[in-house]
């Protein structure tokens, strides 16, 4: 037997998910909306003293990035499992891990990437010093995929289950806390004009680790959930 190669399978899955996402543009917009709300909330709600905002800027950016991706993880696989298309993916000759990775990628493109692109805007809103913004964007670029991947693994674990009770968040947060720490540290150091390369390397390493391990984890978890 012969079947299409990995590349085309990945591409097919990716494009399909993106098309679906754009048909549900509303749901896709939610995390972004949340991100904007959060970042505008702080200046509005707190006494908007620039130095204070500047001090909390890293925390706000990173936590809202984390929470936004968390928000989206919930609905990553659920629909596919409920309408039975996931079953068909598991029954296709393509490795399930690849297909789920593709789904996660599209998910990242819809939730993670916008955050990276919005970082400058948010940064300005919070009086983040301009020189800290490139570093922040790079750090986000490295970290958000990790958040998506971790979220995907946990989503695959819990997809069969009744929702609510914030079980998913309970599972994701512990795993991603280190990423958060590193990321925020990167922004922090950049603000003090320190050398961030060390942290960046660390984030990159974590990302590589996640990319290499997460897909297998997702696939295993998904096969269990489908059983």
């Amino acid at each position, binding site marked *: 037997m*012969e079947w*299409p190669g990995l590349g*085309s399978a990945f591409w097919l899955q990716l494009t399909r998910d993106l098309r*679906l996402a754009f048909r549900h543009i509303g749901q896709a917009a939610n995390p972004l909306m949340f991100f904007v709300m959060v970042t505008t909330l702080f200046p509005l709600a707190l006494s908007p003293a620039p130095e204070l905002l500047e001090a909390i800027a890293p925390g706000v950016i990173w936590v809202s990035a984390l929470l936004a991706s968390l928000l989206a993880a919930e609905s990553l696989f659920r629909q596919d499992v409920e309408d039975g298309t*996931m079953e*068909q*993916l598991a*029954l296709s*000759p393509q490795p399930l891990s690849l297909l789920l990775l593709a789904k996660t990628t599209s998910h990242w493109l819809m939730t993670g990437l916008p955050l990276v692109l919005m970082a400058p805007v948010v940064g300005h809103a919070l009086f983040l010093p301009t020189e800290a913004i490139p570093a922040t964007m790079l750090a986000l670029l490295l970290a958000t995929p990790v958040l998506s991947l971790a979220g995907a693994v946990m989503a695959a674990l819990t997809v069969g289950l009744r929702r609510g009770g914030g079980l998913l968040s309970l599972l994701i947060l512990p795993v991603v806390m280190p990423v958060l720490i590193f990321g925020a540290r990167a922004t922090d150091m950049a603000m003090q004009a320190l050398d961030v390369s060390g942290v960046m390397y660390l984030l990159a390493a974590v990302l590589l680790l996640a990319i290499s391990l997460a897909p297998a984890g997702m696939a295993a978890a998904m096969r269990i959930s489908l*059983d």
Partner: protein
Amino acid sequence: MAEDTAVLLEGKDLELWRGETRLFSRVSFQLKAGELLHIVGPNGCGKTSLLRVLCGLTLPETGEVYWQGKKLARNRANFHASTCYLGHRESLKADLTAEENLVFQLGLRCWLSPADIHGALERVGLTGRRTVPARSLSAGQKRRVSLARALASGAKLWILDEPYTNLDVAGRELVDQMMSEHLGRDGLVLLVAHQAHGVADGVRRRLELG
């Protein structure tokens, strides 16, 4: 050992538990090219579960499934490339049209020209509904999309779980025709259906569950 006379699909004393209850045990069978196995039994006796075991979705408590003599776990990709499973639920993305659905699902398993897919859709009589998202197709039309998938997939083994569901008379005849042709092409069919199927020729066997 993949000549058509050889056993292609084999189940060796399969056993499955659900909760406290044992659904089935010591289920064994062999299926050669051009054969149809009709699995029958009352509601809830474990037919669907058996099919899921056979296509590798569920791990049996004991027993093994062999495809072309190799354990299923060993050559999963190969097996899945040559099977097509139609479950109780048609697995369609509600927001995509029938065509988009097929293009995606089949694109993962074989190279197809749009013509092939149109052909399949025409065969099952959905040409008029090109632009309708699967969500607003009627129950029978959804079922027909799944049939089109089986047609276009070019799979050797069809696993059909109650394919007659929601189909009108013409639709049920279509299913019978499809199966006969498939068997004629030395295909294999695993059929679960409560009513008697209308496949006249070809080797037909029955497996009673429960």
